[in-house]
């Protein structure tokens, strides 16, 4: 076996965020990485506003915070449905909900990420003990395993996943930085088209095989964006000891 492999040919690298959105349409289901504003793909979020698409379903942990991140989409009125886990400090989403302008599905965070992981892994449904005996259980099948009840939860997939990467190569291999990793590698598996917005584009082979956080099979498009705002939500510090 002596394969004549020439890995560099990939065609995945896009020059700017708007062109990376090629094929996006009204009504698209879009996963966006980030825990609050930490790990947001900022350029892709902005480019969606420029693209003019609307009636979006957004799948994201918080759907924006403090008027930033995905709150920009909420303010522009281009989101009709949100699947998320926590809305605290996202005043824009509360306003839209109060007006009845937005349908919101709230999911426990572990179930949220597991539903996406299952979509990516070809698992159509799974049972979880989380939410048994709560409003989350309403309308869901319950089954007992070893005497403990669990809820049947379905896989959650999307048309696009926008993820923030620290480093990416042209094949789409990705490394993340600290807690900016959060939902990104899971969302990448669950969407038809995953776009990685990376702080740094590095050459093929720059990452050791053991150090790739997200293999390029899950990333269809790569975009280098060197400058990000990376806003703080709560900047906390401690005094220096003398």
């Amino acid at each position: 076996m002596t394969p004549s492999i020439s890995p560099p040919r990939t065609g995945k690298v896009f020059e700017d965020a708007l062109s990376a959105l090629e094929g996006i349409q009204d009504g698209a289901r879009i996963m966006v990485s980030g825990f609050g504003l930490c790990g947001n793909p900022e350029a892709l979020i902005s480019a969606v506003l420029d693209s003019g698409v609307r009636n979006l379903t957004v799948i994201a942990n918080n759907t924006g915070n403090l008027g930033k991140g995905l709150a920009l989409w909420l303010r522009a009125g281009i989101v009709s449905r949100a699947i998320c886990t926590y809305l605290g400090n996202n005043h824009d989403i509360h306003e839209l909900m109060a007006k009845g302008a937005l349908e919101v599905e709230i999911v426990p965070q572990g179930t949220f990420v597991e539903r996406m992981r299952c979509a990516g892994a070809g698992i159509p449904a799974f049972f979880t003990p989380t939410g048994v005996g709560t409003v989350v259980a309403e309308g869901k099948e319950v089954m007992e395993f070893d005497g403990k009840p669990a809820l049947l939860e379905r896989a959650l997939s999307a048309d696009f996943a926008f993820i923030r990467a620290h480093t990416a190569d042209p094949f789409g291999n990705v490394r993340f930085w600290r807690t900016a990793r959060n939902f990104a590698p899971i969302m990448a598996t669950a969407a038809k088209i995953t776009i990685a917005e990376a702080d740094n584009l590095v050459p093929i082979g720059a990452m050791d095989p053991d150090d790739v956080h997200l293999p390029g099979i899950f990333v269809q498009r790569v975009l280098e964006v060197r400058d990000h705002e990376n806003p703080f939500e709560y900047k906390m510090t401690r005094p220096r000891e003398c």
Partner: protein
Amino acid sequence: MPFSQEEMAQKAALEIPPNSIVNLGIGLPTLVANYLLPDHGVWLHSENGILGMGPYPYEGEEDPQLINAGKQTVTIVPGGSTFDSALSFTMIRGGHVDLVLLGAMQVSMTGDLANWAIPGGRVMGIGGAMDLASGAKRTIAMMNHVSRDGSPKLLAECDFPLTAKGVVSRVITDLAILDPVGDGFRLVELAPGVTLDALRAATGAPILEG
């Protein structure tokens, strides 16, 4: 005199076994980090993807991409690790976290926890609360004993939307430390100067002694 918030946090810190892995919820439980015993080997888990969460950073060393589940800037201790949310909730839901300390709105005598929504109030969302409450090896609730209008929050049955059923093993309030035992709350410790009668009057379920 009821326990202060700092005293409640100190009491909670005593519940943490050596070398254990602990998740501290947002709010009151966050204070517990200030009272962890030195050389105790306690590792803090944050559900957004840290095991071995450290203190707030020194000024000028804040990293917006290194936060805790309350979205505050934090650090990582030597030996700490970062990971994605699926693995983080594998830790939580899989029972690998030894202890979860959560704020509570209501706790029932059967250990039901309500801490994510007030009927008729703004929906803040669930976040990791349901997974944390039902997934940990042990769940302890921290809360004020009564609400601002004086109504009891330790009840025979919760009337707020539940976070999880039958998960709370201990409640630390400003008036007492109590264990939900099914037919009431068993008293573990009374705050200094609080009488048993006053505790009973402030509690919506039987108080059991001894």
